[in-house]
């Protein structure tokens, strides 16, 4: 027996401690939820909040460490660590805006937070894995809770419909993604990124892998919501509970982009010119279609959905630059995007009140008079989304554009710059509605405290890190060194 075990190198368990903690917290919430009386269900949320804080600090201690374990399938490096930190920051805010919202929707169940935790575990696995099958497992661990979350308000037919659409699209595309993995496996004999790189280094490029690269882009492209895999996004964003929309428009998208980045950078390194061209096309289409279609929307959630499609296009520019600046600008952009996009959705939640979802353009009418500070904060988010200085959105766009320029993608830069002009128009539709129209007399605003805290926090982060981006930039530079630090 000892002989048998001797050949096996035992994995380094310390690498997955944050994942395990997240799992435990998720299970804990599920376990104690039945014992919490209905009026005190918020306790679950507080546990989740506390959990994310703990996870943040635990993960912070991993910064600078570099562990590759589980037979080269799982890696803890600065990139994955900073991505995990990102998840905890974003999720913290998502929980904050969910607390009161779920009560308003009358579906304040503990499962919500547990599912959020499980989805987070999936994403953590995704950004850490160095094996295509691990990517798949992570993706599904993330996606399955998301389907449930999208349909969390069971009695609402819009919510249920969005869940079904999300599920069907997700499962369908995961089949295509898996086929890409199977092709890679057939061509190279392994699903590990290290082996794929080694194989292509020794044996040269294999035409089957060209197909695999596109199929993998397609599989991850669904969560990224890039054209032409974005069709689900507006429907699901509109129908899902707003807090869930805020979540799926930011965190899974970022996780999928990070995963795509790792697969392409570490697995298909030698195919760089090829996937750069593929992503060039997709990114251009995504920016154009996302921004142009958003112009005619009058549902704010839907408009923001198209806007988040467009932002996916900008983020793809970070991958296809394939340089150090690209990665660091991308990591910065993730943070920037999460602040401003969750912020914008938080404002929709802020407007949620009796019989009013708060996602129509009319709901924003005259907000400047009803609640000037909320309107001002929304303007900050919108300016940031449009990329007007001195906000995070501007710095992020500037960095990403510089990266693309450095890699020599002039025309993509021109497209990006031109589509940004268009984006300004629809963002300002909301601003105009808030400032330049008279308020409608209806239900008073509830102004829930937790949402207030969240939007202020996000607005402050949006401005502060726009004026002083150094802390995030340092983290971003560390992450970029993982791929380009020789």
């Amino acid at each position, binding site marked *: 027996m000892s002989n048998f075990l001797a050949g096996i190198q035992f994995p380094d368990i310390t690498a997955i401690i944050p994942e395990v903690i997240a799992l435990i917290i998720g299970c804990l919430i599920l376990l104690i939820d039945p014992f919490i009386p209905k009026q005190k269900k918020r306790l679950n949320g507080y546990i989740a909040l506390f959990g994310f804080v703990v996870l943040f600090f635990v993960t912070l201690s991993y910064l600078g460490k570099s562990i590759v374990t589980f037979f080269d399938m799982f890696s803890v490096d600065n990139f994955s660590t900073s991505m995990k930190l990102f998840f905890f920051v974003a999720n913290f805010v998502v929980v904050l805006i969910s607390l009161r919202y779920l009560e308003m929707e009358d579906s304040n169940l503990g499962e919500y937070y547990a599912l959020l935790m499980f989805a987070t575990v999936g994403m953590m696995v995704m950004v850490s894995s160095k094996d295509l099958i691990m990517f798949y497992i992570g993706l599904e661990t993330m996606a399955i809770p998301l389907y449930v979350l999208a349909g969390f308000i069971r009695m609402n037919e819009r919510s249920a419909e969005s869940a079904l659409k999300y599920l069907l699209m997700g499962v369908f595309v995961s089949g295509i993604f898996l086929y890409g993995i199977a092709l890679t496996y057939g061509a190279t004999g392994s699903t590990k990124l290290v082996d794929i790189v080694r194989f292509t280094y020794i044996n040269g490029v294999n035409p089957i892998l060209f197909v695999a690269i*596109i199929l993998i882009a397609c599989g991850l492209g669904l969560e990224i919501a890039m054209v032409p895999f974005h069709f689900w996004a507006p429907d699901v964003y509109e129908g899902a509970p707003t807090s869930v929309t805020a979540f799926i428009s930011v965190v899974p998208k970022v996780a999928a982009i990070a995963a795509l980045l790792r697969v392409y950078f570490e697995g298909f390194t030698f195919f760089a010119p090829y996937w750069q061209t593929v992503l060039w*096309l997709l990114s251009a289409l995504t920016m154009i279609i996302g921004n142009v279609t958003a112009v005619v929307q009058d549902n704010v959630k839907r408009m923001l959905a198209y806007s988040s499609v467009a932002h996916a296009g900008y983020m793809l520019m970070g991958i296809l630059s394939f340089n150090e600046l690209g990665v660091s600008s991308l990591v910065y952009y993730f943070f920037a995007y999460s602040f401003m996009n969750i912020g914008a959705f938080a404002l929709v939640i802020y407007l949620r009140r009796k019989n009013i979802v708060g996602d129509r353009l009319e709901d924003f009418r005259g907000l400047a008079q009803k609640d000037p500070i909320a309107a001002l904060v929304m303007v900050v988010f919108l*300016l940031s989304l449009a990329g007007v200085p001195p906000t995070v959105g501007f710095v992020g766009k500037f960095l990403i554009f510089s990266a693309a320029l450095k890699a020599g993608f002039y025309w993509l830069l021109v497209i990006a710059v031109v589509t940004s002009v268009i984006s300004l128009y629809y963002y300002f539709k909301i601003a105009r509605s808030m400032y330049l129209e008279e308020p409608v007399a209806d239900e008073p605003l509830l102004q829930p405290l937790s949402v207030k805290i969240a939007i202020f926090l996000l607005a402050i982060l949006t401005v502060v890190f726009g004026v002083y981006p150094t802390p995030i930039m340092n983290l971003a530079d560390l992450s970029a060194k993982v791929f380009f630090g020789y």
Partner: protein
Amino acid sequence: MIEYAWLIPVFPLVGMTINGIFGIKYIKDKAHWVAVPALGLSWLFSILVFIDVLNGKTALIELFDWIITPDINVKVAFWIDQLTAVMLMVVTTLSFWIHVYSIGYMGHDPGYPRYFTYLNMFVFFMLILVLGSSYLLLFVGWEGVGLCSYLLIGYWYERESAWKAGMKAFITNRVGDYGFILGMFTLWYYLGTLNFNEVFAKAHTLSPEIVTIATLLLFAGATGKSAQIPLYVWLPDAMEGPTPVSALIHAATMVTAGVYMVARSNVLYSMAPLSLEVVAIIGCLTAFFAATIGTSQFDLKRVLAYSTVSQLGYMFFGCGVGAYASGIFHLMTHAFFKGLLFLSSGSVMHAMSDVLDMRLMGSLKKYMPITSFTFIIGGLALAGIPPFAGFWSKDEILHHAFTSGHITLWFLGTLTAGITAYYTFRAVFMTFFGRGRIPKVIKEHLHESPPVMTIPLIVLSIGAIFAGFVGLKKGETTYFGEFLAPVIHVVHHANEGHAKAIPESMLIALSVAVGLTGIFIAYIVHMKKLIDPNEWVKRLWFLHRVFYRKYWVDELYFALFIDRTLDLAFFSWKFDQWIIDGVVNGAAWISRAFAWITRYCTEPFIVDGAVNGASYVVDLSARVLRRVQTGLVSNYMLFVVAGTVCLLTVFMFIRLF
């Protein structure tokens, strides 16, 4: 003192924050007690800094790191040299006095604290713009002032025209801004830096083509911000904002940002003769066309707005012929006299209950002696009559144009000076002199404005009289030119011969004569009525129509761009539906084909088979046919598949060939 220059933008920032947070609930109508002292402090510090710079000090104040990566190094830093000092003085002086004026002008407005918040925010961004030590920081200010301009134009948002004008201003500006961004990226790509001192130090390494492209792109930004052809359309509409805003943002400071940027980048522009030529031509043409439009407008503020566009054209014209110092000089004098004119017209508006049509004015001199006096001073300065400020700067620009060999442009510029004098005094005579045409309702409470408004008018008129004297000759150059010399990279033109051929005094005499002629024509037409303007309008109906309708540029742009954008948006919205229809029909076709195959391949079975089997297959075919209406999710899936297949096809194709 110069090391404390970073405090200058901090004061308005603090003022803005306090008013922004506490204004609406607590401070209310005392908002000026926050905003005005903040500006006063800024002004004071600017003066101190200016004195330091006069003594030959310059400084680079690095505050903190902004965007630092291996490839980009931009710090939040202020660069204070002679050019910055001049701009600081212009911005803070004008801002302070216009803030004071606003106390009176906006006194009864319900949004009083909001107004001062925006105004302070504007000053803050404007100061960032002039102090910033890199193109990126300049751009921050550039966008910031654009935003404030949007907010302030649409300040009275109840009026549809106001917010529409705001949108127009913002979107037009953004079009130019993207030129600016692309120009900035071009510089960064070839030089690897955006800091002014590094860019200018490394500029000689750039090839002429690149410099030309970069400078033209930057100039595209300037045409938006500084209202030049072809992007000047927003400025006249921007007059929907409160008049002090028009004075501060749309005459004295923000709109001159483009001129400042060009003068700041003079090292680059001097390396690109083609760009300079473009700047000069655009500037001169704008000056001319805007002046001609100005002759036909009846709205007092619109006359001044077109006059601003025209004068900005002069500034670019000056820069374009290589006389950057003269351009900046004109910027400075123009800030004083145009600010003065706008504030005076605001005072008129205040008295006239917001009536702005000059046809309903006249004989206002009786009722508003101070205002009319200051307006006339501003008018004389604008018309270029010595010794008022405008004369010195305009003359310097024309002189430089002449000596640098741009004879055609010089001629056009001089002609424009005459037209300027004409429309200015047309406005003066129609408003303050002659027979009163004021409606009775308004006449009853016609009054001079309170001291809080007239004192700024008097202060600015002092500026409008004396600001020009810094342009007095000192040897080869002027006092002002000598002061700016360290920052200006002088271009020496080959053909200095013209200067010898015609002495400068002749040129001066000529331009004064042209100006006086303009005033004289205005006098006989609008004062003495010796010539009936209406008859001339009839005779020159075509020209008048062209000028009055502003060359139909608005209509053209609307037809060309606005409509098309909406079409595009509408199209892409419809696109979904069309595609879905297309897919549905396509799916129907495929299904039919499939059914056809099913039927003909399975027919032997039907013939031979049992009734059950037959019904089953028919049922199947029917179901296949029914699949014509696929559900939406299936459509989405189909898109995914179609997208993937397209990608595969396209890239296999690229790969193979």
